[in-house]
């Protein structure tokens, strides 16, 4: 447990040291969201219609972009070997790293989403549902992403291969997440989608660190 805490603390420290990193992940999210209206044109009816999808796709891409810094640095400089040699189970340490990743890349998106939703003219309650779906969904993105990041470690063309592996796995999250908001605005209630998201999250919390650990061991061999 102690080592879990110190991995978490170290990763958060690294994130604050790279002051700009957390902020720039946020800006990436903002910019991607802002690109769509530019490409599509300013009609607010269409924009309102596509808003949940666009916000969710942007969140997904932002999460994915920050994935390659999850293990790559530790792999290159040998820290990962040290983690694997720690007497604490590796899965726990990996859990710490994933948590740090979510805190620095997922949580800020949840907080920022409503502001961007306003740009797309979404009503206030839909914004609430949006935030809730992101709150459940972004940890899922970090967890699933960790598996992909671990699998592509030290593999040629890792960065793009990573997205190839991870994006398909993200699709259920995307569908339920964006679906929640759409169902809500369509008057159907977001409950079903949100509880599916919750169930996925519970599952991932148990299995993802374990799978990522297995993948990491392969990379280290």
């Amino acid at each position, binding site marked *: 447990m102690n080592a879990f805490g110190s991995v978490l603390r170290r990763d958060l420290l690294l994130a604050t040291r790279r002051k700009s990193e957390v902020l720039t992940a946020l800006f990436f999210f903002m910019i991607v969201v802002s690109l769509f209206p530019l490409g599509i044109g*300013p009609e607010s009816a269409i924009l309102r219609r596509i808003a949940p999808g666009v916000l969710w796709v942007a969140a997904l891409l932002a999460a994915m972009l920050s994935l390659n810094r999850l293990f790559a640095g530790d792999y290159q400089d040998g820290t990962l070997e040290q983690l694997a040699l720690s007497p604490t189970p590796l899965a726990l340490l990996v859990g710490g790293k994933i948590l740090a990743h979510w805190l620095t890349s997922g949580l800020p998106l949840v907080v920022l989403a409503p502001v961007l939703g306003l740009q797309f003219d979404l009503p206030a309650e839909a914004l609430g549902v949006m935030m809730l779906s992101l709150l459940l969904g972004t940890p899922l993105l970090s967890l699933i992403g960790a598996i992909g990041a671990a699998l592509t470690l030290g593999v040629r063309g890792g960065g793009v291969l990573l997205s190839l592996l991870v994006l398909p796995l993200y699709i259920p999250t995307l569908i339920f997440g964006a679906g929640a908001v759409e169902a809500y605005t369509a008057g159907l209630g977001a409950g079903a989608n949100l509880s599916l998201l919750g169930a996925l999250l519970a599952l991932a919390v148990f299995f993802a660190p374990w799978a990522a650990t297995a993948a990491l061991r392969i990379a280290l061999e």
Partner: protein
Amino acid sequence: MTPSSINWFKFAAPARFYPLAGRLWPWFAAIGTLLGLVGLWISFFVAPTDFQQGEGYRIIFIHVPASWMSMFIYCVMAFYALLGVTFNTRLAGMMSSALAPTGALFAFLSLWTGALWGKPMWGTWWVWDARLTSELILFFLYVGYIALTAAIDDPRRADKAGFIVSLVGVVNVPVIYFSVKWWNTLHQGASVSLTKAPSMATTMLLGMLIMALAFWAYTIAMALYRVRAIILERERNATWVAELPEMKS
């Protein structure tokens, strides 16, 4: 080099510029405050209520000068970048980084006041028309400049990287300015505010000009103040810094 140009460069040495900036910035701060108060007084009490837009239009007195300043400051930064690249003066980089936060502030102010104004005028906080978008890009460029220079430890390298950002990004400024002409946008064209009834136009123009001057003075004061801090930080090991009275106390 001719004698007069040597004179020019005399103040480009941080050791010379530091006391000069120290003497100047309180004056500009005072002028800025004074003009700001006058400008606000004109805009809120002297300028008549607009018969179409009601009181809401008064936001123009902040919106327009802020927008102007956001573009102008970027041009000034690009100018410093040019100086920095060609003459390799250290002060150019320091001035650029001293100006950037103020520029970002004005860009943000322009966006924010525009959004506040857009709600009553266009019925929405935000539309994706060319001027608004290019102003948003300008804001991002400021933020990118600040983030990039903050991420590089060695100040000289940070300056040079910043020069490139400002020189490349400056193409955006004419895009903002001419966007209303090049695309037919929702946003007002350049002449709209001047074609009202003459009496109103003059007070409005006066108010806007005074506010613009106030923003100018504020920008200069802030830049000088900040550049002093930057000079101190970068030259903290130089002998002239150690000899400053404020360092000895």
